Structures are given as structure tokens and as C-alpha cells.
């Protein structure tokens, strides 16, 4: 009964999820609940299943068992990637993935919420609201000066930001952000933490990251995954004080 209640009020609800690849259990009886408006940091050693969990939420991988519900009622295991994106889940890949031969601005234009079919795109004219939205996002991700350059010309860190900007343009309810500060300088990392905190004021966010300093700056509840299941959950201090977490992840 309590489970039923959580299902209907939470933005994301994973219960007893498992998936195996050729007999190897990448996700093992994983349960996780995210409240609307919550930001959650996920940590855990390499191969813990963090990316695979995102694959399951976004429809790239089908779980062998378990429930995955979005926004209280939507069974995500019954939808594919495009449908899930349209339901309002955006995703930043671990390896920054942008449209390299398009300009920074066009990357945002394509991400902008709106019709997704061929024919409307043929006759699409950019509206004033769309232009303003693009300008605002370019300011937010600090790429306004480079708007007409091809995305391929950006640094690794800037590509990360552009991809976050694309998520903003997509305007999802839930953002899944996989290792956003990999390859960033300390200043950029700090900036990214600020940006994500800002984003989290209006949306739910899951951030996967290895950078503990960054996780500390986010200042949110932390879940530690290990071997495809939740090892510990709570404030960063609680989790990093947990003996098992120290053993498998943080090191003694």
C-alpha cells in the first residue's frame, strides 16, 4: 500500500529492476525513488551499473524484471527512446554527444521542444519566442559568443555544456545527466554545479558523477550503486561514512 502511494506521487519509481547481459547481472534488484523537484547524485565504482540504469529509464535497454514508472503512472518499460523523450525525460550521455557538423545554435534549435516529424520540419519557420529561448539558453550555458561555430570546434567541457543546453531546450521534467564534469577544469566544474542547481529548481534531476568535490557542491541526497544495486543512500556525509562504501568505492 505504501508502495502504491510512492508510485503515484514520485516522478521516477524503480522497483526490483534487474537486467543481465550474457548472464552477467549489470543491474540487480535495483530500487530507487525520486520525488518531483528532487535532485539526486549517484556515485559508485566503474561498472556499478549507473549508465545502464539510465539506459533502462530512457528505453534503450529493456529490464528483465522489475517496474519502472515515470510521473506516477507511465510504465517506461512499454515505451521506446523517442516516446520516452517526448514524455519529458532528457538525457546527457557519458561521452558528450552533440551534432558535430551543426553550429552551436542549430544544436539547440533541433533540441527545442516542438514537432518531431519530417513534414512540419520542412516548412518550419523560427518564431520570435524560439529565438529568445535560444538566446537565453546560450547565455545560460555561456556559449553565446560561439553560437555560429560548428559544435565540433568546442572543447570537451563546452560540448558537455552544449549538451546540457540541448536538454534545457528540450524542456524535460526529468533530466538524467551522466558524468557532466568529466574533462572540465575546476572552475568549469564549479560553474556546472551552479548550473545544475539552477536547473533543479524547476525540474527533477539525476546526476551521475565520480568527482566528489562536485557532488559536495551539489549538496543533495546521494545514492551509491555497487554491482547493480543500491549500497547506501543518504546525505553525502552519511554515505561517505558508510564502511561498505569506503571499501568498494572511496578506498581506505
Amino acid at each position, binding site marked *: 500500500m505504501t508502495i502504491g502511494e510512492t508510485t503515484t506521487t514520485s516522478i521516477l519509481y524503480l522497483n526490483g529492476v534487474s537486467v543481465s547481459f550474457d548472464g552477467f547481472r549489470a543491474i540487480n534488484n535495483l530500487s530507487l525513488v525520486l520525488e518531483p523537484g528532487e535532485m539526486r547524485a549517484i556515485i559508485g565504482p566503474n561498472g556499478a551499473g549507473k549508465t545502464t540504469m539510465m539506459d533502462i529509464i*530512457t528505453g534503450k535497454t529493456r529490464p528483465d524484471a522489475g517496474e519502472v514508472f515515470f510521473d506516477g503512472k507511465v510504465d517506461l518499460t512499454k515505451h521506446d*527512446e*523517442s516516446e520516452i523523450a*517526448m514524455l519529458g525525460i532528457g538525457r546527457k550521455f557519458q561521452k558528450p554527444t552533440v*551534432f558535430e557538423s*551543426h553550429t552551436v545554435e542549430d544544436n539547440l534549435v533541433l533540441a527545442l521542444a516542438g514537432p*518531431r516529424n*519530417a513534414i512540419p520540419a*520542412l*516548412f518550419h519557420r523560427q518564431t520570435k519566442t524560439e529565438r529568445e529561448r535560444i538566446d537565453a539558453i546560450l547565455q545560460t550555458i555561456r556559449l553565446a559568443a560561439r553560437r555560429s561555430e560548428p559544435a565540433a570546434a568546442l572543447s570537451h567541457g563546452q560540448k558537455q555544456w552544449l549538451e546540457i543546453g540541448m536538454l534545457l531546450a528540450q524542456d524535460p521534467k526529468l533530466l538524467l545527466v551522466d558524468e557532466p564534469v568529466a574533462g572540465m577544469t575546476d572552475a568549469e566544474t564549479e560553474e556546472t554545479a551552479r548550473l545544475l542547481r539552477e536547473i533543479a529548481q524547476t525540474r527533477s534531476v539525476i546526476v551521475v558523477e565520480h568527482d566528489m568535490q562536485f557532488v559536495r557542491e551539489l549538496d543533495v541526497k546521494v545514492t551509491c550503486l555497487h554491482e547493480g544495486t543500491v549500497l547506501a543512500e543518504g546525505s553525502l556525509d552519511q554515505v561517505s561514512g558508510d564502511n561498505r562504501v569506503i571499501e568498494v568505492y572511496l578506498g581506505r
Partner: protein
Amino acid sequence: MISRFLAGGLERRINILLAILIAAAVLVPVLHLAVPASSPLHMPTYAVALFGKYLTYALLALALDLVWGFCGILSLGHAAFFALGGYAMGMYLMRQIGARGVYGNPDLPDFMVFLNWKELPWFWHGFDHFWFAMLMVMVVPGLLAFVFGWFAFRSRVTGVYLSIITQALTYALMLAFFRNNMGFGGNNGLTDFKDILGFNIQADATRSALFAASALALALGVLVTSALVRSKYGKLLIAARDAESRMRFLGYRPENIKLFAFTLSAIMAGIAGALYVPQVGIINPGEFAPANSIEVVVWTAVGGRGTIIGPIIGALMVNGGKSWFTGALPELWLFALGALFIATTLFLPKGIVGAWEGWWKQRRERDGAASVLPAGNPVESPAE
């Protein structure tokens, strides 16, 4: 809406190309018909037919470039769509022969009489109407591409696997059309055409008109393709080429984006084939040969894929070279073609147009740097 869409494709280079094509559509008939044969400016019949044929090849290459250059779908079966358009036109031309065939049968084409057929197969009905044949020129290749693409893109077949099945498609069609009982004239194909829309197909005026139609069809193809790739849809094509999964997670269905381009491209190829057949006077199953499709890829690569002008230049140049080569050293042509493709891949990966653009950009940047620096304000040298 359509005109606004088409206007979106206009830019300087496209305008020049369109102007050249339209000028050719007027000038070549004039030089052929109005200038006396004694004048050095006179355009002989064989040249009109030859250049007309090249223009249909250029349209075919442009069609391939739409899917390969802009969307990354390396189709090795585009000649199949070209040939199907050609067969649809050929069937109309066969019906125009009427009772003037060798057997003088008013109801059946010669090859059917020869095979002892008693009545016209159902799929030949309607082809005595020009409008119906023209519809089929577009519908048959378009429908085949749609069905093929529906399954292939939905199953997420990409890259070399997709190329191989397109090649298999054209090969299978070739085998089918070689069979006499398919009802398309077997290995002889369709030929001995007499007239088109009531005009003698051999007449100078008809040849000129066919040339002009080819030039205008290519111009229209250029305009549509250019508008398409400059629209938001065109950006989606490139996005599907570069990062398909990124697109999916933004909520797009890359398979639908590709399917639209693939179908449109097949229709363009079909129109090219339909213009080709009356100018060469024959269509046979050899047009489905896998090598034909590969040649189209070579033209496009040589000219520069992912550009509008590249495939056109490539088709004209390589075929010009082929006409010369097959006259001088016929047995070496395929080797020359292979060498050309390898050389392009190694030395001009972006083709002639790509190399030209790169060179031009470099020059402009150098000139720009040279002209800005001395004139720049010496007081305000930027920090770092």
C-alpha cells in the same frame, strides 16, 4: 507554403546553377534547330542526345547525394529506382507503337506476340496514357523505396549492412527483369520506340525538347534539394547522419526522417530514368546491374558529396571521361573508374567541390588576416 519553402533554397551558387541549366534548356535547342548545320555553332544530334543523357545522370547523382551525402545512407541500389522509372516510361513508349510493330498487332507489343501471349498483362494497363505512365514513374520507385526503407530503417539496419541489402535489391530486380515471363521484354528490354506524345522520337525538335525537359527537371531537382537541405528538416537529415542516438533521445524518430529522404530520392531517380529512356531509345535489365549503382556513387564522390553542385559536376565529368575512354580504350574503363574512386578517396575526400571550397576558405582567411592585421588598431592589442 510550397513557394516559400522553395524560395528558402535560393542562395548565390544555387542561383547561378539554376541560371545555367535554364539557359542550357533554351540555348541547346536553339543551337540545334535554328543554327544551320554548316555553322560551327550548330549542335549535332548526337551531342544533344549525349548531353541530355548526362543531365539525367546528374539528376540521379543528386538523388543519391540527398541520401548519402546529407543523411549518410550509402545506397548501392539507386540505379534500380532509375531503371524502374525508365521502365515505366518505356512501357508508355511501347504502347505508343500501336500496330506499327513488326507483327502489326494493335493490342500487344512485339515481344508479347513473340511469346505467344494472347492478352495484355494487367500491369500493362493504363500505360497507353501519358499521365498514368508519368504517375507510375514516380509511384513505383517511390513505393519500393518506402517499403524497403520502412523495414530497413525500422530494424535499424545501417552502414555497410544497409549498403549490401540495397545492392541485393537491385541485383534481385535485374534477375527478375531478365526473365521473359515477367512481362517486361526479358533481356532485350523495351525498344524500337516510335513516338512520344504524338511526336516522332527521332525528330530533332523532339530531341531538343527532351534535352530541355532534362535540364529543367535537373533544375527543379536542384531547387527542391537545396530548399530541403536548408530547411529545419535538412538539419535533421544531417543530425541523423552524425548522431542518430542523440536524435532519438531528443524525441525524434530518425527512421522517419530517413524514410522521407529515401523515398523522395527514389522518386527523383525515377524521373531521371524516365527522361533517360527516350533519349537513349532503349531500357533493358542491364540498367539494374549492381555496377551501375556503384558508378553513381563514384560520380557523387568525385564531385563532392554533401553538396548540391558536387554530384552534378561529378556526373558530368566522369561521364564525359567515360564517353571519351570507351571510344579510345574501352577495355580499360572499369580500371580507370576504380582508380578514380581510390584517388578521390585518398586525395580529395570531399570531392572536387569540397576541395575547392576548402582552398577558397583558406585563401579568404589568409587574405582576411593579411588585410585586417596591418589596418588594425595598434594601440588595442588584445591581451594574450
